[in-house]
């Protein structure tokens, strides 16, 4: 849906003829749609950038948004939508900034009049539509990359290896244990075992909502890997419903020690490593 050379020539003339008026009117419409969440000055700058990109492109002859000579225009649009996406604006609020140009163009075309007025406006509107869709696409892409980033950060955040006692480290697992997370957990745990030279590791699955065969297999692999490095693994946080499900599924944890709670697991490990815990005798007559 490209603009022919004559059409884009007229568009360039229209837009650059009254550049100041176009940008002010455009800024005005956008400002009212964003309800003051961006400063007038910032909006004016964005609109001016877009304006000059469109004029620059239309002066080169025919406009085709997917062609090479529209690269600058595409960059300006992508810039705008990236900024809006990161600032938390909705898709509508972002694309309205582009569609606002239609209103401006309608006014200009009407004033200029002439035999081609309607045809020109339809062609210009198509271009604006295309620009709007392009903006929408890049808005979605930015949002998707934000979500992917956050998922990655969550992956990092949600797998801490904590030291519970001298020689005892624990991994509290929370949420879904998919292959990617299981890999991160295993790497972290094994590295921490080396760094702290701990002989005991506790894997706590209190926060794992469902233990299916894949989760079980990931845990078993981690335990076997830790064993190869000479550390003993205890699985804790096995709730009644999880225990019954594991039995029904037929998963066997073999000789791996399992405990209902993290406290039980810690007590078990302390006993194994010969640490005595005793309650202090209450002082008589105190």
């Amino acid at each position, binding site marked *: 849906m490209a603009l022919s050379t004559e059409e884009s020539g007229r568009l360039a003339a229209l837009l650059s003829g009254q550049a100041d008026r176009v940008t002010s009117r455009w800024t005005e419409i956008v400002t009212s749609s964003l309800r003051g969440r961006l400063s007038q000055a910032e909006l004016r700058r964005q609109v001016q950038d877009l304006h000059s990109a469109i004029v620059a492109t239309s002066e080169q002859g025919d406009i085709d948004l997917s062609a090479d000579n529209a690269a600058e225009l595409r960059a300006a649009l992508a810039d705008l939508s990236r900024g809006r996406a990161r600032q938390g604006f909705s898709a509508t609020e972002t694309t309205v900034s582009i569609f606002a140009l239609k209103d401006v163009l309608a006014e200009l075309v009407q004033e200029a009049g002439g035999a081609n007025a309607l045809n020109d406006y339809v062609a210009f509107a198509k271009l604006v539509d295309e620009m709007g869709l392009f903006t929408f696409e890049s808005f979605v892409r930015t949002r998707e990359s934000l979500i992917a980033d956050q998922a990655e950060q969550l992956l990092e955040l949600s797998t801490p290896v904590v030291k519970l006692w001298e020689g005892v480290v624990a991994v509290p697992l929370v949420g879904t244990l998919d292959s990617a997370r299981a890999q991160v957990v295993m790497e972290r745990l094994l590295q921490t075992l080396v760094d702290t030279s701990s002989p005991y590791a506790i894997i706590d699955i209190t926060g794992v909502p*469902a233990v*299916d*065969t894949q989760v*079980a297999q990931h845990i078993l692999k981690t335990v076997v890997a830790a064993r190869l490095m000479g550390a003993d693994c205890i699985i804790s946080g096995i709730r009644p*419903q999880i225990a019954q*499900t594991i039995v029904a599924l037929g*998963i066997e944890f073999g000789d791996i020690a399992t405990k209902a709670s993290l406290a039980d697991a810690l007590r078990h490990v302390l006993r194994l490593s010969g640490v005595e815990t005793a309650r202090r005798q209450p002082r008589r007559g105190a």
Partner: protein
Amino acid sequence: MTAGIDLGHPQAQSVRSDEDVVRVRQLVRTVAVAVKLSLVDQTKVVTAASELARNTLVYGGGGSVEVATVENGRRKGVRIVFADSGPGIADLDLALTDGYTTGGGLGLGLSGSRRLVDEFEIETSPETGTRITVTKWSR
């Protein structure tokens, strides 16, 4: 299949990625809570759904899952249908044997999930793929 009347609309979820398996799990859990399954039964049916949805993804090359509530007299239940258009299961008896796997898993997914639910039905052929229907009734 036992006589059961569908309550409300069945919920469908396509299975194309690992995230979809998580979505299936959440959907099944929501429905299981809605029909008042006990915590143990909720966990069992969610785990079975997780296994079968992953089978749909890994062995069936993706497919769809439909979750519906069913009623049989005074009991309510969850019925889940897993359908794919994959290559089907060559030897069903062997596939339902504990510890048998063609994919490097524990080999307990299919056989184990049969023990986790009350009703379990498989239709499979190389032409139409595999369709598994499971039902878990409230006690």
